């Protein structure tokens, strides 16, 4: 008993009747203290199975959304709910970022991966503690450290959210007993309950610390590893999906066309008129016929026959190719909208006073000028000047530029008046293609042609849309897939070093090229040294392994008789673009792959848009020089260099070498040739020789043995054209996607291989180490022996 003052002491021990009675009351109260019980905690543990847990995760997210709205409207939310909005923001933000990135993604796979990547990141963030921390902890210690509860205020929280403030009183005795039993603590022993509570607290603290310590590494690492594994699956799925879609479209090609290709309803009548006048001058009769075909009354507009005069002598062009194709496709061109469109356009044009007068005035103006020229220039004109004038006419492709034309004519005739010129000019003007924009009639023709062409282009696009997922050069085609796999095999067989791969994958503008030339040489030689057999095997492996004949079936069907004709015509119209697609159709997929791989090196060599390719050319040159094949060629190089292409100090030395050609060792030549070719073709500031591509081509032809080159051309029928396209591609005139795609694949393959190697080397061990450490430390957690000495003592006994 505590020390108490005499006063208090006496108050307590006083034996008066009254005090006795108070004591009695106190004792009674003390005995019945338990008449009251603590209120039940409002808080309760959340007990959910994984399915329920997943469901409540979804519903919680909705709740967060609702809370966000409340917070935004009223600014009123408790800390916990507000904190949870972070999670919502994280999810919404991830979705937004993925959406933004996906909108800029070049391929479907990339777009899908943006979302899957985000989802993976969030999943890993959520699953990492669940699988690698909470589950092992539960298995090792016998209780959940990710237990959640609903607080008295209705907020869902982690029980162990704050280790210093754990709502331990919401665990029932039975739960604590069970936990104790599973974690090997005798609940009934002294401090039994406290022991298990302490163990739960400590285990949770350690595991949550472990979580915080590892999540920062685990989330990105696992996301990347998983993403890396998912991506090929996604890509395959996309390729397969697109392929199946193509097949389906091919099976229903007529329907597909009819949906996408509009054409004039009563085009026959119109066509007849147009065809009738396609090769002769338009007269008022013809005009009336066209008007009739379009049901438009034009009599008021062209009352004066002079109105027709300006265009009377002009011919117009109807695209015969287009018309013929259109005519052949009558059966599948069914659109009814065009007639209306055409009619409206025509009607608008001729009803528009300004347009009518304008065009008429313009046409009149041109001929007035011609007349002026004829009348005023009777003097002589020099031949050179005449050529210039005529050339300028050639360049004037459209009537719209008549002002310029007039100016030029005036300038020309002012400079040197010449009567002879008059007739010449007259002829030129009468033959000039002033196109269709000067009169309503031509406008009608132009529109008609455009519509037909649009229809045909639509068809072509449909074909290409069907073909691309199969044989296109884009990243996600069956063709690319097989090609890429073949490349990977070959790369694997060649066993390239990291340096080689680094060199080959570098971007074209990398300035470190000089330094990596040696590496590239090795790379090239290694690649070139692969035996024919290896090539063949690698190719066959894939062709043969392509057990699913659907692709071949598809190609055959695509190139069936019906389609073939159409495609050919479209092909004629479209020019050289997309030729590889037709190569496949002509030669078959196997052969295309084979030939592509066989001449892959040459294609790569030729791809002068890429410094990589230039380097390869150099390397190839070196190889050939070493093999003694090109001594003659080297002499020619010297000649060319000496004659025209050497300039400045750096080249002077080559000139000097050239003078003493016979005494120069082969190695020196190799070095100089490499320097020459490299520097001569490298872009931007590193450029020493302003070689244009045509000349470079010459140079290349000289450097290479012509006979060998021809042989290669035989192997690769269109190599010349290919190279030509490559050169043109420099200016962007030609769709070079197929061509650069092949070189791109080389670079991509190298890049991927290198990335994969780097990845595996750095991140996989890290991931494994992280997982291992995370799992292995688990049994060390929750040690409370030091905190309960008697336990220790018992253990010691």
């Amino acid at each position: 008993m505590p020390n108490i003052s005499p006063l208090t002491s006496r108050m307590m021990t006083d034996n008066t009747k009254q005090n006795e009675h108070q004591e009695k009351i106190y004792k009674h109260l003390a005995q019945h203290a338990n008449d009251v019980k603590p209120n039940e905690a409002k808080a309760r543990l959340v007990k959910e199975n994984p399915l329920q847990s997943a469901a409540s995760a979804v519903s919680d997210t909705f709740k967060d959304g609702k809370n966000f709205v409340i917070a935004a409207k009223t600014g009123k939310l408790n800390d916990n709910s507000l904190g949870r909005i972070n999670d919502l923001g994280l999810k919404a933000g991830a979705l937004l970022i993925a959406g933004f990135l996906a909108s800029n993604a070049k391929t479907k796979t990339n777009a899908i991966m943006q979302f899957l990547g985000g989802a993976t990141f969030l999943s890993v963030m959520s699953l990492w503690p669940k699988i690698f921390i909470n589950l092992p902890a539960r298995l090792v210690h016998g209780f959940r450290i990710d237990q959640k509860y609903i607080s008295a205020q209705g907020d869902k929280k982690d029980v162990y959210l704050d280790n210093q403030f754990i709502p331990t009183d919401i665990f029932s005795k039975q739960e604590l007993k069970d936990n104790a039993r599973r974690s090997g603590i005798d609940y009934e022993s002294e401090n039994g309950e406290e022991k298990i509570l302490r163990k739960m607290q400590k285990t949770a603290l350690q595991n949550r610390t472990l979580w915080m310590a590892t999540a920062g590494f685990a989330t990105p690492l696992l996301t990347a590893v998983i993403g890396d594994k998912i991506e090929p699956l996604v890509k395959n799925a996309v390729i397969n999906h697109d392929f199946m879609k193509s097949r389906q479209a091919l099976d229903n090609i007529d329907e597909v066309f009819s949906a996408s290709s509009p054409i004039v309803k009563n085009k026959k009548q119109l066509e007849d008129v147009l065809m009738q006048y396609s090769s002769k001058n338009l007269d008022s009769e013809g005009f009336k016929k066209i008007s009739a075909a379009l049901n438009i009354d034009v009599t008021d507009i062209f009352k004066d026959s002079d109105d027709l005069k300006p265009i009377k002598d002009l011919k117009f062009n109807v695209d015969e190719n287009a018309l013929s194709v259109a005519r052949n496709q009558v059966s599948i061109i069914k659109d009814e909208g065009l007639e209306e469109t055409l009619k409206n356009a025509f009607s608008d044009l001729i009803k528009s006073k300004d347009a009518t007068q304008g065009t008429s005035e313009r046409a009149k103006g041109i001929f007035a000028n011609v007349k002026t020229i004829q009348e005023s220039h009777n003097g002589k004109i020099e031949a050179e000047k005449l050529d210039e004038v005529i050339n300028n006419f050639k360049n004037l492709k459209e009537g719209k530029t008549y002002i310029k034309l007039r100016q030029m004519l005036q300038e020309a005739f002012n400079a040197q008046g010449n009567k002879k010129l008059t007739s010449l000019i007259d002829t030129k003007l009468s033959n000039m293609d002033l196109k269709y924009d000067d009169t309503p009639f031509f406008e009608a023709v132009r529109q008609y042609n455009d519509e037909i062409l649009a229809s045909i282009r639509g068809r072509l696009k449909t074909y290409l849309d069907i073909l691309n997922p199969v044989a296109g050069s884009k990243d996600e085609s069956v063709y690319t897939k097989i090609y890429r796999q073949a490349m990977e095999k070959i790369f694997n067989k060649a066993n390239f070093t990291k340096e080689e791969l680094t060199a080959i994958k570098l971007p074209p503008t990398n300035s470190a090229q000089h330094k990596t030339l040696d590496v590239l040489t090795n790379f090239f030689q290694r690649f070139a040294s692969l035996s024919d057999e290896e090539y063949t095997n690698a190719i066959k492996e894939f062709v043969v392994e392509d057990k699913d004949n659907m692709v071949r079936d598809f190609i055959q069907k695509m190139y069936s008789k019906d389609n073939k004709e159409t495609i050919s015509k479209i092909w004629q119209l479209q020019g050289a673009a997309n030729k590889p697609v037709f190569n496949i159709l002509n030669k078959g997929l196997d052969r295309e792959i084979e030939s592509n791989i066989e001449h892959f090196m040459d294609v790569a060599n030729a791809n002068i848009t890429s410094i990589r390719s230039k380097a390869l050319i150099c390397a190839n040159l070196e190889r050939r020089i070493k093999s003694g094949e090109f001594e003659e060629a080297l002499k020619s190089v010297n000649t060319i260099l000496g004659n025209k292409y050497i300039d400045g100090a750096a080249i002077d030395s080559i000139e000097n070498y050239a003078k003493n050609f016979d005494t120069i060792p082969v190695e020196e030549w190799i070095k100089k040739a490499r320097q020459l070719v490299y520097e001569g073709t490298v872009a931007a500031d590193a450029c020493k020789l302003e070689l244009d591509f045509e000349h470079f081509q010459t140079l290349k032809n000289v450097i290479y043995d012509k006979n060998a080159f021809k042989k290669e051309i035989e192997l690769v029928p269109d190599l010349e054209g290919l190279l030509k396209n490559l050169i043109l591609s420099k200016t962007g005139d030609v769709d070079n996607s197929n061509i650069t795609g092949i070189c791109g694949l080389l670079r991509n393959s190298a890049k991927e291989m290198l990335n994969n190697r780097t990845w595996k080397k750095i991140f996989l061990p890290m991931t494994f180490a992280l997982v291992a450490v995370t799992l292995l430390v688990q049994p060390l957690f929750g040690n409370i022996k030091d905190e309960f000495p008697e336990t220790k003592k018992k253990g010691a006994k």
Partner: protein
Amino acid sequence: MEYNNKIISPILAQKLNISQKPEEKQQQAPVQNAKQKQYPYNPQVGQNVIAQNKQILSPILVQTLANSGITKTQNSENVQKTGLTLAQQRVPGYKNDLKEALTHNRAKILAVIPRIMNSQDTDGNELIQGDEIHGNFINAVGRLDDIKELGFDTLHMLPIHPTGKTHAMGTAGSLYAPKDFLTLDPELVDENPAPEARKRIEEIYLQLTGKKLEKMDKNDPDVAFAQCAYLLDECHKRGIKVMLDLPSCASVDFAKEHPEMMAKEADGSEKVPKGWQDIRMFKPFEDEQNRELNKDLLDMHKKYVDMCVKLGFDGIRADVGRAKPVEFWNVIINYSHNLDPNFGWLAETYTHEDASPQLNMPYDRPKELLEVGFDSYYGQYHIFKDWTKAQQLYDYVKENIELNNEIGQKCGAKSLIGSFATHDDSSPMLYGGAPWVMFTTVLQSMLPQVNPYMTDGVQTGDYYIFPYDHALVAQTQTDNNECTVHTGRMDIFNYSRKPGGQFPEIANVVKSAFALRSNEYNKINGSSSLKLKMNDAQDVITKGSFIILPTNNPEIIAFARHKDGKTLLFIGNRNVNKTVGGTIQIPGLKENQKFNNLIPAYGEPCKIQNNQNGSINVELGTSRACVFEIDNPDIEKLSKEENVLQQKYID
């Protein structure tokens, strides 16, 4: 020997006599037991008691005593004879009504520390050293008139026990680290009181001990008791009630002496609450699993209550209410009511189920503490400064009124204190200076279900910034030479200067605001200042409804208090940095309503404009609070239902 011959409170005894006979109780026992399992009270019995007594008694006490048959031994004549406590005998006319004042929101509380309350700091270093006189029971009396004048009618007296000297905090030891609970700090004894006081103390000494006082010796524990009783008498004479602070833990010295009462960690060491190295925690349970209380601890607290009642304390403020279980308070509070039915109990506990600092310490659950007998509790107003929107305040008011209404029908009214700044919080001066203090003063004076509360010094703007903060000094009464201070808070660790600041205008506002609550407004401000009749203002504030007024500026706090057609209007700007303006909708506002602020103006001006369309435009200076009396008898009916809150309870 004159002893209080009261055996049991007359009201209680009277009630027990008319309660059911024990035999009938026995017959009903099984049913009751079943009920008790669900809920410990027997509401019917409790309600009878309450209904017939108009006195708030714990139904448990009533029932348990009735069941025990104890009352049978009581002689009704005896009960009639019971009357005056020792304190009442000493101060004629004094009657403890703290419990009722607390529950009915009528208390206006000042937290004081006797050992610094009237310190004489002559050298100006703010630390009382050497010959300087620190506060004591006798010189504290010198402050009472001033305190009373401001309108305070209740003192929360922080602990007055001798402090532990081991691992102590500060040079005087923490007030909350008592070395002994059943004696008083001898340092609070004035060995040379003035003759008049000495005479009174001698009389009290004789009354308490039956002995004549030989020497005014501070080492005689009964001298401390007598001097404390003298202070209490002086309070009672002025109509001031006093509740004593019951520390929740004990000093290290106490723990060494009484290991049977102390909680142990698993390794056998003593339990230390986080951040308080100088105290040790009690072990409230002997067997926690079976919820068997620690008898030694219970006995000591019973004696503590005995001591308080004998000395004349009117109630107890229980430090960290949750530190002891509901069963514990069930005994102690009911026992106190047996001695003094109007003994008040204030729990330091918070509204929300806070978490525990120790594994085995339960949550704060104010509801169960209020149900078991506490009259008032701390609540969460100390975080008011973090509520940037008026709605947060309204929500909290609503939450508490709902809590009251939930238990009010069984347990009577329950209240909060205006815990805007307690001794555990930084001085409100540090947050927003004197205007903020005045703002919170007026606000808490106008809130429903609140007993205004201040710590000593804040009424004149004490920053609680001490120059000796953490200084090392040679003179110490503990094993610590460092003047530990919780910077910005009341000093509970050292002999400090007298609390107080340089802002007498705060006192003026306190005076006005409190006067409204005690119907003394006109006495102070002239008879026509307030049109409401006597008692009306107090009733409106302490009993009236709380009507939230819609505004278009979330920072403006605007509400009306209304009862029986009488209305007071509060408008305030809780922003300490800027003037805010807005429109306030006042349903039923008359077009010719004038606005005369009942609170003295301070700081930046406030502008009010009657829009004559049921709304007013206001522009309120930083931290300005205004109270208006308006003639608006229908405001309650015209307001939206969800905006009208009314405390309901059985009276």
